């Protein structure tokens, strides 16, 4: 944002230049790609890299929403099943003959509705979202299984505009789904840092009590964030069925851990108050690069789960180390300041 109208000097409102918080993970991602690329040059083929990006799309969208939840010190465990249930809902609407575009919007709304259910329970019972969604995790899974009869939902007439649009590749290489994901991430990054809603999310996460006493209703923010999360899951689900042409009854069951891992690798702290959407996207890509990279090295794909876990531990250790250093530096700055203001 270039907003200089009310600031006394245009340059004064600019913070002294600091490296963006995401620098670390971005360097890590680039290094990883380069290292794999030097050993296996075929990996650097743009088509391969874009495939990696498009593989992250559906979980990556969930990670974007999860950043907001972590930023208010909450976690939604049910995201995988909201995703699945919304996809199933969209698919069944299409099977019932609803126009695929309308069915897709229906899927987004349905996801938001499930998020609202989580939100109402969590706010109404004054319970942390992690507890409520532990229950709704199974509820949504169960209901989804009931309505799809334990079989994959396959919409008919997959030659219509919706399916073509979602599965298309711009210039023959950039998948539309991946593009939607990137646009969503950029928009949500902007929302978190440059809107009142984003400000309130950060405020509630920083200090819920102080936020409440400053007139920011914790309950409202929590509800809005959970609905947002649900809508994003719905969007991801509706696009998934357009992209793949079917939704498997178990698709989404393992999403939540990967999603939270990506957000944490990206640099969003569990302690709340701050979140980085860009970081989460990069974190998602790091996870995907690891599992693809292992394949390129001919290592059994079953190792990828272990490596992903190891990367999470490494990422949080580094993060902790950096925070420690920063705190020490801040302390030093404070002491210098104090001795400077001494009469």
């Amino acid at each position, binding site marked *: *944002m270039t*907003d*200089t*109208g*009310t*600031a*006394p000097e245009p340059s*004064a*409102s600019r*913070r*002294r230049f600091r490296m963006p918080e995401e620098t670390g993970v971005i360097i890590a991602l680039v290094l990883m790609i380069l290292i794999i690329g030097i050993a296996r040059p075929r990996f650097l083929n743009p088509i391969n890299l874009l495939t990696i990006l498009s593989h992250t799309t559906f979980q990556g969208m969930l990670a974007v929403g999860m950043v907001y939840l972590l930023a208010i010190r909450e976690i939604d465990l049910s995201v995988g099943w909201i995703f699945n249930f919304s996809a199933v809902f969209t698919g069944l609407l299409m099977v019932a003959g609803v126009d695929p575009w309308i069915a897709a919007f229906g899927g987004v709304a349905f996801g938001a509705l499930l998020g609202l259910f989580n939100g109402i329970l969590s706010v109404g019972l004054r319970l942390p979202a992690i507890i409520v969604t532990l229950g709704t995790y199974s509820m949504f899974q169960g209901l989804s299984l009931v309505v799809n009869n334990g079989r994959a939902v396959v919409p008919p007439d997959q030659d219509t505009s919706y399916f073509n649009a979602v599965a298309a590749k711009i210039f023959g290489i950039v998948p539309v789904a991946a593009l939607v994901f990137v646009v969503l991430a950029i928009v949500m990054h902007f929302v978190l*840092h*440059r*809107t*009142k*809603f*984003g*400000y*309130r999310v*950060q*405020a509630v996460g*920083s*200090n819920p*009590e*102080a*936020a*409440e*006493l*400053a*007139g*920011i*209703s914790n309950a409202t923010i929590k509800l809005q964030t959970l609905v947002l999360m649900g809508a994003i899951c719905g969007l991801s689900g509706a696009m998934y069925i357009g992209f793949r042409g079917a939704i498997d009854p178990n698709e989404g069951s393992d999403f939540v851990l990967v999603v939270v891992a990506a957000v944490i690798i990206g640099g969003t702290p569990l302690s709340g*108050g*701050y979140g980085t959407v860009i970081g989460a996207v990069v974190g998602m890509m790091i996870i995907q690069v690891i599992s693809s990279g292992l394949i390129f090295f001919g290592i059994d794909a079953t190792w990828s789960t272990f490596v992903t876990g190891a990367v999470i531990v490494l990422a949080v250790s580094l993060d902790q180390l950096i925070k420690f250093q920063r705190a020490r530096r*801040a302390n030093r*700055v*404070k*002491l210098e*300041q*104090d001795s400077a*203001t001494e009469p």
Partner: protein
Amino acid sequence: MPGDILIEVRELTKRYGGVVALADMNLTVERGTVHAVVGENGAGKSTLMKILAGAVHPDSGTIKVGGETVAFDSPNDARKRGIGIVYQELSLFPERSVLANLYVNREPAAFGIVSTRKMEAESRDILDRLGLHVEVDAPVGRLSIGERQLVELARVLLEEPQLIILDEPNSALNERETQRLFAVLRQLSARGHTMLYVSHRLEEVFAISDRVTITRNGRDVLTRDRADLTIPEVIEGMIGAQQDALFPPPLPAVAGRAEERIVIKGLSGGPLKDVDLTARSGEVVGLAGLEGSGVSALLAILFGTQKARAGKVTFPDDRGLPRSPTDAARRGVCLVPADRRRNGLMLEKSILFNISQVFVGAQTGGSWLYRNGPAFARAQRQIDNLKIKARSPWTLANQLSGGNQQKIVIGKWLEVGPKVFLLDDPTRGVDVGAKREIYGLIRKMSSDGGIVLFSSTELPELVGLCDRIVVFYQGRIAGELSGVDDHTLLHVINTGEMPAAAERSEATP
């Protein structure tokens, strides 16, 4: 054994960030005496005690115990040297039983299993002596505050310390509980225990102590036998010569300001019972009372964080009580909470972020964007307006001193121009310079037409700053005072009885 020195403290200094807690503190305690340390809030009493108890490290200075120089690395070191402390804030585990609390971290064990029987047998004598007849298996949370304080004392006594430090042990006790505590302390003193008694309530100090050390601004001003001191002398020593300068005079009313009022009729809720009170713009109304007397409940109800049971309140906008803090904030009612670090600030965020709390967080309408430019302008305006000492608006809140932090809490509200100011102990833990500035701000709030309700635990502050002081006692208004001294005010706060002289002054407008 007079003349036998137990503790000797020399030239102790301690700074917290920009706040000097101890500048040059000296203290000598003789064995077998009750030694009182008095001073205003912020004089350094509590810091000194925490250092003696090993909870805080001094920056420089020496401590001798029994003639031997010591350096405490932890509370355990101090405990081993025979120093036990009863803290001002209760440090018990409310969920756990009385016994469990008495033996925290040093439970007697038989074959590796904690022996409740042993604990009971050992503690019975001490509990009896303290007159604490409670079920020892009951969770501490069920006891009254006074009983809890005695549990805390019992815990310290069980360690058989050479020196017992009591840091304002009765700040939360009522009159009867205080009397009981004092009886216990006299007994202990008669048995030859050495005690350091910290307080800013002078009657108590005179009732209990043998020797008195007066502290001010982190220094010891005077140490003398109690018999050679009078209360006015002590007050003079505590406050020093700067009292007049500390409180700015009322400012002339801003011309053309609206005359508004809050009318409270028959308000009940929490401990409050049937409270009637009117506050007008242009005056600073002091609210005084012991813990639990209803002052904090009144502020909580007026701000919408607590529900009222009965009664009618009319705000300047002719509407009733706010439904929630959000409602309050939108209607121009502001609260400066007593615990600013917990309830007022986002410590990991910048000044800029914090100043926007209410403007961006609570208000409706306007742009849905949160933009750095206007936020920066708001922060810069309040930094200039309140003279916040910070390198830039991007400085994090936890890098500032207490006074500057409090100014941010005030500044975030000033940014939305509130009409009703609810100030809950706004100068707690703030150094004297910043206090004076905050007093100035409060004067300005009221002269600009704001309605100011000001609660404080510091009597000189209430007396010096407020146009009138409403004293709460056990949920009711005990009376209204103006132009009184600390002494009278203290009496009303503690007993709920208005002195004859004060009744008269209440009648004068």
